[in-house]
């Protein structure tokens, strides 16, 4: 099938998409946007989190066809040119990035949290990020990063 989708503000088209492909697969393998990650591909780890019409979703659980005509914003679409989004900058500064495979999903999830709750409590941060697995950091520096981003925004 042919898929039309707006990604990071740009209208994109993908041809010969097999109906069983996920939005994650199309982003990564057909549209040259591998930033969203493929850690579990079963909706458990959050590493593939993207905005679909402003709602964060696991793109591995969205069939490509479901994104037809809709707007997707990925981790690649958060920075403003060379200027990182405050959430991205905070992850770098706080040491919240080790292997970084969980980072794109966490950055999108934290970005969404701060859009909704500009000054979250620790409990609110934990709840909002509970769907994103990280194996390297033990999460402490991720919490630091979100607090830092909240202050910076």
């Amino acid at each position, binding site marked *: 099938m042919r898929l039309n989708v707006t990604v990071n503000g740009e209208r994109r088209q993908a041809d010969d998409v097999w109906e069983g492909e996920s939005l994650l697969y199309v982003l990564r393998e057909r549209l040259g946007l591998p930033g969203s990650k493929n850690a579990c591909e079963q909706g*458990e780890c959050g590493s593939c989190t993207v905005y679909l019409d402003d709602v964060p979703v696991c793109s591995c659980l969205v069939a490509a066809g479901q994104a037809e005509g809709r707007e997707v914003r990925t981790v690649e679409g958060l920075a403003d040119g060379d200027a990182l989004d405050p959430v991205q900058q905070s992850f770098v500064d706080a040491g919240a990035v080790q292997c970084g495979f969980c980072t794109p999903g966490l950055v999108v999830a934290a970005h969404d949290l701060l859009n909704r709750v500009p000054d979250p409590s620790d409990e609110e941060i934990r709840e909002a*990020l509970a769907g994103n697995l990280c194996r390297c950091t033990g999460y402490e520096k991720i919490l630091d990063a979100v607090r830092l981003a909240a202050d910076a925004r």
Partner: protein
Amino acid sequence: MTISTETTSVTEAQGIGASPVRPDGTMKVRGEFAYSSDLWHEDMLWGATLRSPHPYARITGVDIAAALAVPGVYAVLTHADVPGVNRYGLEHPDQPVLAEDVVRYRGEPIALVAADHPETARRALERIEVGYEVLEPVTDSEAAVAGEGPALHPGGNVVRHVPIRRGEQDVTADVVVTGTYEVGMQDQAFLGPESGLAVPAEDGGVDLYVATQWLHVDQQQIVAALGLPPEQVRLTLAGVGGAFGGREDLSMQVHASLLALHTGKPVKMVYNREESFYGHVHRHPARMYYEHGADRDGRLVYVKARIYLDGGAYASSTSAVVGNAATLGVGPYDVPNVTVDCWGTYSNNPPCGAMRGFGAVQAAFGYESQMDRLAEACGLDPVEVRLRNAMSEGTVMPTGQVVDSAAPVEELLTRLRSMPLPEDRSGELDLRRLPGGVSNTTHGEGVVRGVGYAVGIKNICFSEGFDDYSTARVRLEAVGGEPAATVQTAACEVGQGLVTILQQIIRTELGVEQVTILPMDTSIGSAGSSSASRQTYMTGGAVRAAALKVRAALVAHAARTLGHEQAELSVAGGKVVSRHDGVLADLVDVLDGEAFDETVEWRHRPTEALDPETGQGNAHVQYGFAAHRAAVDVDTELGLVKVVALDCVQDVGKALNPQAVLGQIQGGSAQGLGLAVMEEIQTDGGVIRNPSFTDYLIPTVLDMPPMRIEVLELADPHAPYGLRGVGEPPTISSTPAIVAAIRAATGLALDRVPVRPEHLTGT
């Protein structure tokens, strides 16, 4: 002196001891860092692997005809297509690249497909017909040691037995405590799945881009299987999404290379999460029998232990795991009389190998559980009994090795004990702080709190006489009017932050700000593995040594051209500085178009093999220590545990990058928490029952409590900068501290990890 103000600045602020940001951090937060599963090549195919559904079976036939007929399929390969030796393995080449006449574990690779789409490849796999004669699997390690059951490999089912005999063997004591302990099979659960891209080359070889922990040991095994010379198999490290030991063994490396060479096209392979559970080795499950004898004051007289480690179908790093568990089997204590026997065995369970802290993690659950039992038997506080037996610098290990640098077990424990405990639950109720969380399973009724302590020991770097080295090249030249250094190694950045550390070392030693870390590949000599907490020590040591050679050559050159004595010159802040006359010249001017380029192969001091009868020998390079205190709330009715505090004190010798050190301690402690209360690959007759993140649980941000951490810096005079490997120790003591806390809360014996709800409710 006048020189200092002018030469500090950036190079000191970003040198060792500072916490500059990671050079790859910005790319990672932008989603632009190329991990091994992100690679793409024009005209590339997708590879897929057919795996055995049986833990143990004879293969009676493989028919690939129907799979080959699927449109879009370019190749279907079996063991007959392996041109070299169809065997590989980290320490013993006992594992087929593709199974021949027998499969020894559920998930063993049998055939490969290359196709134009991953779904096409998957469908073709379904059309490969394999005939099996299913056999009764061997699943028990102790039975293997007893010689029961069929031999899975020509030498029998014992991979290695290490005895340790120290002091009197028939000694008795006034107080004796015994226990049998079990550790479940843990998974590394790195997030980036096994993956890579193999590109066939014009010279008949292959270029492989892969996520691994040790490029050269991969290369060695790949060339043997492909029957190619090393120069025709070139590896480059792709972005690594975590490792923790699980990437020490080969996964898709040979398979993708075979498909690429066979089809003449680039081939990408990416495991999904389920396949990842079959595609890498796990932490050895253990059964351990301990007997501790002490006097009435709680001072240890002897320790006897038998430790059984199930290595699964293939040897992987079982030998080294056995060595660690045996030599570290009594823990960080001064024990005059020791009798330890440790075995690693073959079975038809999933293969086990390296995972963070290997061997030491299993033993620590045994000996720390015993120390708590001893404290109770002697009527002592658990910290007090540990203090009375704490080893220190100068202690003789059960191997006869004298510990010749800081071993601050006493200080770790006393500092830990002095840290404030978390506040009691009181006042307003927040479900999110209770066991069960927002599932709303309790409002505090039936919830009890406990506190537990544990301390652990780990050998750092490779042991037992292994020729452990790393190779580094450092180049200094002027680029665009600025002095710039380039560092080349084959050391794998797996997330730990080695790339940052290497930059810091260069800034400190050469006084230049601009440091480029070249891509890691096999065009330079081996760096050894990113494991055993060794890479800052080893490749950091190698880079430092190369930098010092560059600096010496540069200073000699500067002395000649500037007309000063060599002995008075140094480099800092991009300047050549004289001890007497301050800044003499800009580095760029001294370089004057010349480049200084040095390559060094660097070794730590040698170690010795263990005596095969007594286990005596100076087997280890360095010991690392950490201690944890855990506080838990336990819902005794539902068996739910909430870890409310997990505090840690660790000696790191020298914190080259304090932020990264904390990151290692936090992350390592989290993996220990996982083993304590949730993480286990559950097997039934050799079959994994939970190969997914739905059923294999790792800690989330809700499970990890805030941590108080104190870092000691007691320099090891034998190590570069006095550093002590950081990565593994925090994983070791975290688990037994949490279980001790659960025991303190519930009064239950709890002799197995992970602790499950039914262990707490008795249902």
